[in-house]
């Protein structure tokens, strides 16, 4: 089977948005779920969160950051090109209920998976406060989109080029210390950010949910490669998650397991770059 890329655009340097034609996936997709794609016969299966979907047009939106071989190769593809495989929707959907005030925290490319959740929480009548962060203003994605689906949007940049000068965790803490009652926090971003948010919210007794991104192969519970430790128990993130209660997550284990193939990933990227022409920007 082949899945056509119907639109592609760069959001900020190294982060791209793609709309993929996959009507059956679009029809079943819900916020919080992900897909696994494979570019070609030799490709690796990589998981990416469903950033949006359009049931009428049959499109699924993915937003990805160039990291290694596969995401760099994907970044070079254009509208009209086809992906060999695109499986989904995988994982459990987020439990989106009407509970009051929800704070959604997105860091870096993690803003992408937060967006459909913010929209869904808002649609059913919650007050949505969103906090988005990036290293600098130029790397901030989906600001307008987030603004449109949030009652309040706060921005943090590491260098202060936009919004709060500092980390998203500072803003989370300010909210928690403020007058407004917060009923739930959802934080998605690099593991290090999610761990920091978990640390900040821990003393406050506010339900905090994170979305884990361990290395996956099948995404159907068949390999156990994605196992994470949740409150002392082993869980498979692809079927039991990817969302879990932040206070239960062993982030050190997650981060350590994510680094397992660092050497092979570098080799793979080197090997790929060798095959590219001189004018290629991945050099």
């Amino acid at each position: 089977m082949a899945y056509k890329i119907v639109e592609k655009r760069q959001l900020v340097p190294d982060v791209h948005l793609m709309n993929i034609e996959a009507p059956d996936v679009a029809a079943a997709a819900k916020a919080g779920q992900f897909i696994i794609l494979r570019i070609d016969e030799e490709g690796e299966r990589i998981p990416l969160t469903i950033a949006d979907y359009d049931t009428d047009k049959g499109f699924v939106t993915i937003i990805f950051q160039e990291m290694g071989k596969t995401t760099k190769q994907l970044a070079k593809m254009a509208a009209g090109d086809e992906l060999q495989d695109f499986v989904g929707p995988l994982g459990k959907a987020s439990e989106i209920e009407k509970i009051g005030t929800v704070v959604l925290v997105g860091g870096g490319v993690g803003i992408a998976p937060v967006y459909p959740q913010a929209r869904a929480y808002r649609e059913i009548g919650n007050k949505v406060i969103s906090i988005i962060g990036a290293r600098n203003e130029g790397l901030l994605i989906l600001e307008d989109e987030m603004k449109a689906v949030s009652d309040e949007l706060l921005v943090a940049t590491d260098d202060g080029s936009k919004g709060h000068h500092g980390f998203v965790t500072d803003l989370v803490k300010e909210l928690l210390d403020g007058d407004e009652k917060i009923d739930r926090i959802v934080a998605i971003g690099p593991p290090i950010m999610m761990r920091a948010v978990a640390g900040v919210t821990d003393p406050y007794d506010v339900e905090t949910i994170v979305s884990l991104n361990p290395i996956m192969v099948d995404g159907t519970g068949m390999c156990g490669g994605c196992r994470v430790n949740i409150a002392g128990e082993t869980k498979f993130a692809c079927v039991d998650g990817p969302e879990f209660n932040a206070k239960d997550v062993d982030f050190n284990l997650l981060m350590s397991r994510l680094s397992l193939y660092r050497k092979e990933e570098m080799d793979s990227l080197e090997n790929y770059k060798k095959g590219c022409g001189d004018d290629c920007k991945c050099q």
Partner: protein
Amino acid sequence: MSVTQEMPEQPADERIHNFEEVALGYTEEQAILEAERCLECKKPKCVEGCPVNIDIPGFVSKMKEGNFEEAIGVIKKTNTLPAVCGRVCPQEEQCEKLCILGKKSEPISIGRLERFCADRERESGVKDPVVAEPTGKKVAIVGTGPAGLTAASDLAKAGYSVTMFEALHEAGGVLIYGIPEFRLPKAIVKEEVGYIMKLGAELKVDYVIGRIKTLDQLEDEFDAVFLGTGAGLPKFMGIEGENLNGVYSANEFLTRVNLMKAYRFPEFDTPIKCGSHVIVVGGGNVAMDAARSALRLGADEVSIVYRRSDEELPARREEIEHAKEEGIVFRLLNNPVRILEGENMSINGVECIKMELGEPDESGRRRPVPVEGSEHVIDADIVIIAIGTSPNPIIFDGSKGLEVTPWGTIVVNEAGMTSLEGVCAGGDAVTGAATVISAMGAGKLAAQTIDDHLSK
């Protein structure tokens, strides 16, 4: 009395450096010599031992005449995947176990003869199949392991419009992602799948039932459904250190190697850690496959750690022998109790305890009991857990009224029908991890049941 023809093989010291097939298959001359040993018994015991009751004397007698085309015709009447079964059936437990010649000398090598006929047919080009008139009815097959492929093939031949749904990107189930290339070349599986497509069946890969569509939806869209979703959920031991970097389930290890072709990294993008000292926990076919794959990836030493003795090893004898020839170390009567942590959550050896065999347990096998104070550490940097699997659970999301056991296996009646009318199931999803041929048998039965049900 004549002895069996030995199968030519790749020498052990060569084959441990490649992923090519180990057993090379009979020559025509050998095949005929072996066939000639068969007594063509009036009441052939061997047939009773074959779960799909292949007419063994029937096909063997055609082989004696050198008429391989008719021989394969006889086999294919009851077995859709002979090239696969001839290679991976536990023959010594089935057909060959009951062969009358085995009493005094060696049984006929039925599996090897079957393989020969299937390979010969493939080389000379498989004839286009004959398909019955369309019935106008639609059947969904979920899962494309041997159970699903067999059901799909029989139903397509009977004129049903068949759609197969597969969660992975390739059809074949364990035949594609589990059993390694050196035991079952993937080209064979692909040809078998191709044959079923020629019968008119449609294949949708990348299609997880329970996610993209539910069983409830399939029941609405199709006249009948077959569930052949297998038992692929890996079990872990629950011991300390099992989530360390470098601990794999056999499923993950084998999937990376077979389905994702990690042995050809970086030509293929999926990486794998091969390690220098590899420990595989378990004693079945899965453990042997993982161990022999690790060796071929370049590990210095690979050991099987198994809590019972050689006699109880559940793997096929041929695989155990092959593994021994290749230099796999068998640490029997040994059980891991803890995986030791090294730098950066890596593995720094496995602590094991010696076991001895006590009284027989429910399975009739003697129960292994730990020998107190016998803890010792075995050097390891990669650990592969191959202690079993349970049924794949995703299919149960959105399957109202489907009865399952507390172990997660699907409940069926003697005809293979589940608690839902028009929904059949079979293979590992029903029995728990078993064999290729029993899964095929279940697929066959279910196809018959569906046909009966829909022609009412």
